[in-house]
């Protein structure tokens, strides 16, 4: 890559850093327990949880760091943090 004179750079986004590889624990949703309240999406510091067409909340594992806040805050205890295989 050639140097950009003036140390200039194009705007970048945090999304360029796929932080999912740092994860030690993976959030696993129990669909039967989930009340669709959306607390997990609100609380997620990565903003990586979205609602799908059926109203389920789905984390994007490419970005989820496995912090476990969603599981800690879930009023229905519908999220389990499972250790990743590394």
């Amino acid at each position, binding site marked *: 890559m050639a140097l950009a004179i003036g140390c200039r750079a194009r705007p970048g986004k945090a999304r360029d850093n796929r932080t999912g*590889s740092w994860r030690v624990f993976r959030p696993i949703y129990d669909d039967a327990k989930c009340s669709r309240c959306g607390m997990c999406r609100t609380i997620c510091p990565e903003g990586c949880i979205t609602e799908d067409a059926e109203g389920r909340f789905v984390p994007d594992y490419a970005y989820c760091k496995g912090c476990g806040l969603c599981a800690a805050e879930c009023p229905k205890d519908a999220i389990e943090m499972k250790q990743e295989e*590394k």
Partner: protein
Amino acid sequence: MKELRIHGRGGQGSVTAAELIAVAAFEGGVFAQAFPAFGVERRGAPVQAFVRFNDKKIRLRSQIYEPDYIIVQDSTLIKDVNVFFGVKKGGIVIVNTEKAANYEVPEGVRLITIDATSIALKAIGLPITNTSLMGAFAAATGEIAFSALENALNHRFPKELAAKNIEAARLAYNAVKGAA
């Protein structure tokens, strides 16, 4: 002079591991030098930390390119970073993984895998793997005595936390000794 390179991610305690290994080595009567190579300062970014061991004063300040020992704190780094780069023949590589030892290390290099994450979860309750890997390092290389590591941990952390970390280090130490 022997050299160790530690690969980890920001926040995993690679720099602390280097520090404590050097402190333990110094207690054992050798000169030691520990230093980090920071990339960008954020959690999760790949970082390296280095330790040198020598029987006389260490003057060399460059980073470590041909280590005798390598510790890999996070096996997911292996696909992003050439963690085994430059390791000397007869060297030892310690990888934190729960999988079987199927990484391709250079010829003549001993590969030791250890599930430091599970050990840390069991002993400390957190996936902080550096102290387990220090125990594994002590067992695999003999560069530091376990008692010196214990002293270094006791000195560095409050009593209760130190006890948990020593337990993690001991479990890893015994696991590596047992496998040998």
